[in-house]
């Protein structure tokens, strides 16, 4: 598999399918694991990091579920390629910054990705479309079992899996659900909900994980506690919380339709109008307008555009994707023009 192949392929999490996919974009679980006896990546020297890289690569090669996966080493990639993987949520922005002895393992469906030598020696991630936490957990759990047959993970019976950051100690697990909550934002209930989430030991982030602001009505909610509860219990807690938020968003959407239908239709059609005719558009404006379009599609106000098309536009209009499609480096101004063009073309061909 080559990086360029990804462009003609829709990531699993962008398919717009799966349970509650009108509100839930994706479910993701990642496990942090380290090899015992070797310092954590930020403290390991080059030889030790190389040792980790080759040990993990060897283990990956022995796992049946990863037979088709590609191991992409940071040192072999240019910045656009790395950013492309970040935009597709296959690795973190942090991972792209330093190249030494770092790699990411990606399976062709883009369901599984394993970052090698990020904050921990391994970050095993599984991502699915829609609200699908338990299936996602089953996949990542089996993968973890398979890898642990070939690698000795740092583990203490009383503290669990040992990680570089004490916030991950224990299960090393973080479950995240990406939600699209336009009605809660429009009805100004979102802050109340986000405040409640924080009190319940969950965190909210933006589209691109740690340190990013929530934008375009997209919110990523994950567990904060990793120690003191079995994995199933942590999952049940996230699951219950997300169910409640979905319910609130659904009520918000119904309220908007009942009380402000023409305002809503106007907002959605204006968004479509701008996307269809703009010649210069920033990535932020694109996200905001696509968010409205997605809502229109979910509510049946827009009938001739599929959720998948909208999801694809979200990713194709990101900076690295634009540069990859055009096969050259683009300045921010050039990107704004190319972005507008791609959106117009894609919407015209529907």
């Amino acid at each position: 598999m080559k990086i360029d192949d990804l462009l003609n392929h829709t990531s699993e999490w962008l398919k717009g399918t799966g349970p509650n996919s009108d509100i839930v974009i994706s479910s993701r679980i990642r496990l942090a694991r380290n090899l015992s006896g070797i310092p954590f990546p930020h403290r390991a020297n080059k030889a030790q990091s190389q040792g980790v890289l080759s040990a993990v690569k060897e283990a990956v090669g022995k796992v049946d579920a990863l037979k088709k996966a590609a191991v992409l080493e940071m040192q072999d990639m240019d910045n656009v390629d790395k950013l492309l993987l970040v935009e597709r949520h296959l690795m973190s922005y942090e991972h792209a910054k330093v190249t030494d002895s770092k790699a990411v393992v990606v399976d062709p469906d883009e369901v599984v990705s394993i970052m090698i030598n990020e904050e921990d020696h391994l970050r095993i991630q599984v991502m699915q479309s829609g609200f699908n936490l338990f299936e996602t957990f089953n996949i990542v759990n089996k993968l973890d079992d398979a890898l642990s047959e070939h690698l000795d993970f740092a583990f203490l019976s009383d503290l669990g899996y040992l990680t570089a950051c004490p916030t991950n100690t224990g299960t090393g697990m973080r479950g995240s659900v990406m939600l699209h909550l336009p009605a809660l934002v429009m009805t100004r209930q979102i802050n109340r909900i986000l405040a409640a989430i924080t009190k319940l030991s969950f965190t909210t982030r933006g589209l691109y994980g740690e340190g990013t602001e929530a934008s375009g009505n997209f919110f990523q909610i994950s567990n904060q506690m990793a120690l003191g509860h079995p994995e199933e219990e942590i999952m049940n807690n996230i699951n219950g919380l997300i169910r409640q938020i979905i319910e609130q968003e659904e009520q918000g959407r119904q309220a908007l339709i009942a009380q402000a239908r023409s305002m809503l239709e106007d907002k959605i059609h204006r968004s479509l109008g701008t996307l269809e005719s703009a010649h210069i558009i920033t990535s932020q404006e694109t996200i905001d307008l696509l968010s409205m379009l997605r809502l229109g599609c979910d509510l049946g106000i827009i009938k001739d555009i599929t959720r998948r098309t909208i999801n694809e536009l979200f990713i194709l209009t990101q900076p690295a994707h634009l540069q990859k499609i055009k096969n050259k480096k683009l300045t921010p101004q050039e990107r704004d023009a190319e972005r507008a063009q791609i959106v117009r073309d894609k919407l015209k061909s529907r």
Partner: protein
Amino acid sequence: MLCDLCGKNQATVHLTEIVDEQMTELHLCEECARQKSVQMEQQFGLADLLAGLAELGGKTAEEKEVSDKIKCPSCGLTYDDFKKIGRLGCSECYTSFKKYLLPLLKKIHGSARHLGKIPRVKAAAINSAPGASELEELRHKLQVAIGREEFEEAAFIRDQIKEMEKRGKNK
């Protein structure tokens, strides 16, 4: 002067950053400066938070002095280093700093006792399955050898593992 980040608006905020002794100047418009300050706050946030929590280690000044100096024999990280960077150096640090880490973990997670998954191989070893534990021990030795940069030893252990895995398959 235009903003260095967006290149569109007039730069009104002027920042000097020093990273690894290299000084760079940044000229930003108000919008980009605001975004950058949010980023910086978030970056500082976690380290500060952990450092604050890690202070739980020693209560009196003397105790604090003692805890700060504790050094992990395996990777050389001191508890004071940990408080500054918010990251542990290696899995041994958990044993080296255990006394001070337990209250910190309790503060973060509400508990300091793991109730979740046990690696399958370790669970098997606990049930004393013969063979499985031997292989497990070899894998551990291999990683320790990599950690110590004893690569000749590592290659030797790797061969032993391969041999043992082969035997296992032929059984």
